[in-house]
C-alpha cells in the first residue's frame, strides 16, 4: 500500500501524473517536464519532497557517531549543512545524504526515500557504544522545496527570519507561513532555493502560502520528472542510477566528501584511502551527446570495438538543448575531450567527455 503525502490531494486537483515512487504516490509531472524544468531555471518552482527520509540524531556522541557513519566531516558549525556519502566497509555506497547541524549535540540526516528502510537498519546497527538517540521522523515530516532564481523573493514574504543572511548550505529554524519549520538553503537543482521541513499537518498551509507568494513570479509545481532532469543537467548523481553499493565515492568523483585529511575513523576509510592512492579502475564522468539519440541508464559505451563503460543516467538537457549523460568509463578514458560511442537502439552515436556541471548558469549561491 503506497503512502500519500499530506499534499496528495493538491497534486490530484492539479491533475498531476501520479506514480508510486519509493512507497509514496508522488507527482511525476503536472504538465510538460520541459516547462517545469525551465520554470526552475528561469524563475521559481515548488516541489513536494515529503517522501525523503529524516533521522534526528541527538546526544553527547552525536558528532562522533556521524563521523563514524559518514565519510564527510560532521564538525561543521551549528546552522550549517553538509553533503556526504555513507559507505559499507567495502567502500560501496549505502546512501548519499544531507546532514543539517541543528545544535552542538543535534543533527538531522535527510536520506533518499528509496533507501529509507535500509538506511534506518544501517544506522540502528551502529548505535552501540554511542551515547545518542536516533529518531526516525520520516512519517510525520513533510518537505517542500522552493527552487529557482526567484526563490528568495518568494520565501522572504513568508518568514521573519533573515533569509539573506543564510548562505548556501546553511539553515535556521523559525516560523514559515506561520508554522514551525526548518528553513534550509539547500536543493538538488543547481539553482538558489530553499527546502522547508515541517510537520505533516502544516504542509498544506506551507504549500498554499508558497503558491500564493510565488504567483507574481509565475511559480508552478514541479514533479519528480523535472527534478531528475534538473539534477542531471548540473551533474548531481542519483542513488540507484549513478551510485549504489557497487560504486565507491572515489569512483563517483565524490572524493570531496571523503575526508581523508581528518583523523576521523569512518567506516571504509582504509579501503577508500587505498583506492584513492592506487587510483580506481573507473570514473563517473559527464558526457555530451554529439550524435543523435539519448543514451540512458544501462547504455554501453565503446571506444572502437572495445566496451569501456556504461551510462548510468541520460536525458535531454532542456536548458542546453542537447542530450547529456553520466556514466562510468575505464581509467584512461575519463579525460575531458575523450571521444566515445554509445550504442542506442543498435546504432552507435558519438559522445564526448566534458566538464561537469553541464549547465553552468545556475543561480546557486
Amino acid at each position, binding site marked *: 500500500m503506497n503512502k500519500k503525502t499530506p499534499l496528495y490531494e493538491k497534486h490530484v486537483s492539479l491533475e498531476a501524473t501520479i506514480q508510486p515512487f519509493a512507497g509514496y504516490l508522488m507527482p511525476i*509531472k503536472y504538465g*510538460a*517536464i*520541459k516547462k517545469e524544468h525551465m520554470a526552475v531555471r528561469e524563475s521559481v518552482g515548488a516541489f513536494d519532497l515529503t517522501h525523503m527520509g529524516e533521522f534526528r540524531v541527538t546526544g553527547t556522541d552525536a558528532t562522533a557517531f556521524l563521523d563514524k557513519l559518514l565519510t564527510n566531516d560532521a564538525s561543521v558549525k551549528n546552522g550549517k549543512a553538509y553533503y556526504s556519502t555513507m559507505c559499507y566497509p567495502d567502500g560501496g555506497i549505502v546512501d548519499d545524504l544531507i546532514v543539517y547541524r541543528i545544535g552542538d549535540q543535534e543533527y538531522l540526516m535527510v536520506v533518499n526515500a528509496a533507501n529509507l528502510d535500509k538506511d534506518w537498519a544501517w544506522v540502528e546497527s551502529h548505535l552501540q557504544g554511542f551515547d545518542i538517540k536516533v529518531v526516525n521522523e520520516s512519517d510525520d515530516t513533510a518537505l517542500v522545496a522552493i527552487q529557482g532564481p526567484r526563490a528568495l523573493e518568494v520565501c522572504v514574504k513568508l518568514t521573519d527570519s533573515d533569509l539573506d543572511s543564510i548562505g548556501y548550505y546553511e539553515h535556521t529554524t523559525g516560523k514559515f507561513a506561520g508554522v514551525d519549520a526548518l528553513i534550509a538553503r539547500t536543493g538538488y537543482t543547481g539553482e538558489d532555493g530553499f527546502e522547508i521541513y515541517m510537520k505533516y499537518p502544516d504542509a498544506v498551509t506551507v504549500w498554499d502560502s508558497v503558491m500564493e507568494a510565488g504567483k507574481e513570479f509565475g511559480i508552478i509545481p514541479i514533479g519528480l*520528472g523535472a527534478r*531528475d*532532469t534538473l539534477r542531471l543537467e548540473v551533474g548531481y548523481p542519483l542513488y540507484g542510477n549513478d551510485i549504489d553499493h557497487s560504486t565507491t565515492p572515489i569512483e563517483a568523483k565524490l572524493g570531496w566528501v571523503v575526508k581523508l585529511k581528518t583523523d576521523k575513523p569512518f567506516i571504509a576509510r582504509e579501503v577508500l584511502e587505498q583506492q584513492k592512492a592506487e587510483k580506481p579502475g573507473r570514473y563517473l564522468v559527464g558526457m555530451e551527446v554529439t550524435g*543523435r*539519440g*539519448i543514451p*540512458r541508464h544501462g547504455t554501453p559505451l565503446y571506444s572502437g570495438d572495445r566496451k569501456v563503460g556504461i551510462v548510468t543516467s541520460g*536525458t*535531454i538537457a*532542456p536548458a542546453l538543448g542537447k*542530450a547529456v549523460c553520466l556514466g562510468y568509463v575505464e581509467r584512461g578514458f575519463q579525460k575531458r575531450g575523450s571521444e566515445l560511442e554509445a550504442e*542506442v*537502439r543498435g546504432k552507435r552515436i558519438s559522445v564526448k567527455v566534458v566538464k561537469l556541471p553541464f549547465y553552468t548558469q545556475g543561480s546557486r549561491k
Partner: protein
Amino acid sequence: MSSIPENVRYTETHEWVRKDGDRYLVGLTDHAQHEMGEIVMAELPEVGAEATKGDAMGGLEAVKTAEDFFSPLDGEVVAVNEELEANPSLINEEPFKGGWLFAVKASDDSQYDGLLTAEEYKIHIGE
C-alpha cells in the same frame, strides 16, 4: 480519453495509418504520444528504405523514455516528415496531422484492410 479518429487504421504497436493517394501516412497515436510524454527527438528512416511489416523503422526519444516505431505495411519508404527534425513536439501537439512520421508505398494494399479499426484499437488500449 485519447483521440481515436475513425478515418485511420491502427497497429498494436500504436501507429496509425492513413491512405493518402497511392501511399500510406504513418504516425504515432494520440494514446501513445500521451504515454511517452514530450518527444524531444525523432529518428526517422531514410527515403527509399525497405519497409517490412512489424520491423522497427526508427525511434522516438521523450524526456523520460525512448520507443521504437514500426512499419505497419510491407513496401518502401517514400517520404519522411522533415518538419520533425526541428520540431519533434509536433508528434505531441498534432499526432494525426503535422506529427506524421513517414509515408510508405505498400507492395500489398490488402495489408491495410487487416489493420485494427478505431473500435478494435480502442479495445486494445483498454478505453
